[in-house]
């Protein structure tokens, strides 16, 4: 007997959570895309999709957000720092890869200077993950040593029941327990079996790839030029990636008042690293693609002991020219280290 949440109680859950002061967010399909968005009713959830088009990152690290407002009067500058709107929220129906993505970025936003925007949102959010029973051709969590039921970054893990009528509840953190105590009356003890997890084939051997990447001789390998030749240098892989975290800071306004904003930026863009002098340390698209792969599987783990990829596969799924981490690492795994 395990504690279960049945689908027919989900609407009550949403109501209870909302009355307990949580805003409820989940996978939603609107217009031609899907993303994690606020809902009022359980019926608004679209829990059937493999993965929303847009990653969960934007709920913690929005594509554009104010940092401060300034006003300038004669010889005085006044600034008002922006604090993200406070409020507890439950993000329901998160995929394990998206949840892992959040935990991957925690050390980055926390090392040295602690990014309050990120951590305030992290602390106020309860991540309710649903293990995957479906996968598509692009999923690659298993290749990253994660799984369709990974618990990294999650506060609650729900395992779908075989009859597709509910989930087994696994409480992982105090935050999760607190959120689920608000709906304790809706949970039932049941002994229904869980549905089999999605089968995600392993696409490459990660250790082989990492060994190749770590070998300094391969930095200048011809491989990088060949693999990235068709890369058009758009930022969609980085923008949809749950772990890519580069940003830009831009001012909007005039000499009297305005706002300073933090916007997503991407290592795929030629101007990203361009110096004032015109010198560009990463002057070719192959150097930029190499940086992205190296950063995810060599530099980032070197610093924070975790790969900066959670295997969601969005990079390949939406790439206009059918590139992505999968293809690159698959090819690397066939090279001599």
């Amino acid at each position, binding site marked *: 007997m395990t504690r279960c949440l049945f689908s027919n109680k989900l609407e009550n859950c949403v109501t209870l959570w909302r009355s307990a002061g949580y805003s409820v967010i989940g996978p939603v399909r609107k217009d031609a895309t899907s993303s994690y968005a606020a809902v009022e009713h359980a019926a608004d959830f679209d829990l059937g999709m493999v993965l929303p088009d847009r990653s969960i990152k934007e709920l913690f690290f929005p594509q554009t957000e104010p940092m401060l407002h300034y006003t300038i009067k004669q010889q005085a*500058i006044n600034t008002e720092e922006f604090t993200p709107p406070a409020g507890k929220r439950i993000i329901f129906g998160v995929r394990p890869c998206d949840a892992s993505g959040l935990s991957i970025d925690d050390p980055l*936003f926390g090392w040295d200077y602690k990014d309050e925007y990120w951590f305030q949102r992290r602390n106020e959010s309860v991540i309710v993950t649903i293990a995957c029973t479906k996968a598509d051709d692009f999923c690659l969590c298993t290749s990253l040593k994660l799984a369709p039921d990974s618990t990294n970054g999650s506060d609650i893990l729900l395992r779908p029941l075989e009859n597709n009528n509910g989930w087994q509840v696994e409480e992982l953190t105090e935050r999760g327990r607190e959120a689920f105590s608000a709906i304790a009356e809706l949970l039932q003890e049941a002994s229904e079996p869980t549905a089999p997890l999605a089968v995600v084939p392993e696409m490459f051997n990660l250790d082989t790839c990492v060994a190749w990447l770590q070998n300094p001789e391969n930095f200048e390998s011809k491989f990088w030029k060949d693999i990235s030749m068709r890369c058009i240098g758009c930022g969609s892989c980085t923008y949809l990636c749950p772990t890519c975290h580069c940003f830009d800071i831009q001012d909007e306004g005039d*000499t009297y008042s305005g706002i300073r904003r933090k916007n997503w930026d991407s290592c795929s863009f030629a101007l990203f690293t361009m110096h004032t002098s015109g010198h560009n340390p990463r002057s070719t698209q192959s150097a930029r693609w190499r940086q992205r792969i190296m*950063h995810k599987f060599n530099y980032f783990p070197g610093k924070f002991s975790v790969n900066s990829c959670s295997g969601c596969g969005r990079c390949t799924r939406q790439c206009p020219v059918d590139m992505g981490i999968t293809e690159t690492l698959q090819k690397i795994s066939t090279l001599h280290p």
Partner: protein
Amino acid sequence: MKIVGRHDEAPGVKTMRLEFQNPADHEEFRQKYRTGMFGLYGVYGEGESTFCVASPETRTDYIECTFRQSGRVTSALANADIGDLITFRGPYGNRFPIETFHGKNLLFISGGIALPPTRSVIWSCLDQREKFGKVTIIYGARTVADLVYKHELDEWQERADVDLVLTVDPGGESPDWKNKVGFVPTVLEEAAPSPENCIAVICGPPIMIKFTLISLKKLGFDETNVYTTLENRMKCGVGKCGRCNVGSIYVCKEGPVFTAAEVSRMPAADL
């Protein structure tokens, strides 16, 4: 910060002297600032720009910065007048470990607009001149007009305890130019300073650093005695935004000062 002084160094290059408005900020700066660190200078409405603090750690009543007017922010800074307020974030980054240079000869090599960071170290050392051995400065620019800190160059030239070698790139000399003509690495090899008990500090454009490192190696300098600064494009200054990365290093946190030994371990093509 208030602009209390500004003057033109070279075409498009300005130096500004800034004073803190808030004593607490000033105190914090005094505590933290060591030569080699940089800051983000900003004008609200335009943005922030990263450059080094050009004044030495021995003179912290003010901040001096030198920059070339080229983009949106530097244009706004260049247009600011004495008495105007601009923003400063910092000091960030690491430092030149000057106390480990005590008792040693110093060789400063610098090119163009990269004299400011070198100058910060030079004055930090000259202000406590007795602690160091021989001081040699090799400075080159594209043309005579592009040499910055001309008045200080004169001062150094006159000092008996400083050996100054000036050079301009071929074609950049003026009719009355009495110093050397040639690229910095060549002039360095001609001057052939002894690597014995000597620390070298190089600042310059990436291409100059690259070739100067080779020349220093030829002269017999040990990589661990050669310091340089890698001033990449930066936005956040606190190790988050990702653009100053060289390999796993965040230049804004772990740099900008590195020894040549550290640089040689970095992926060279990304410099």
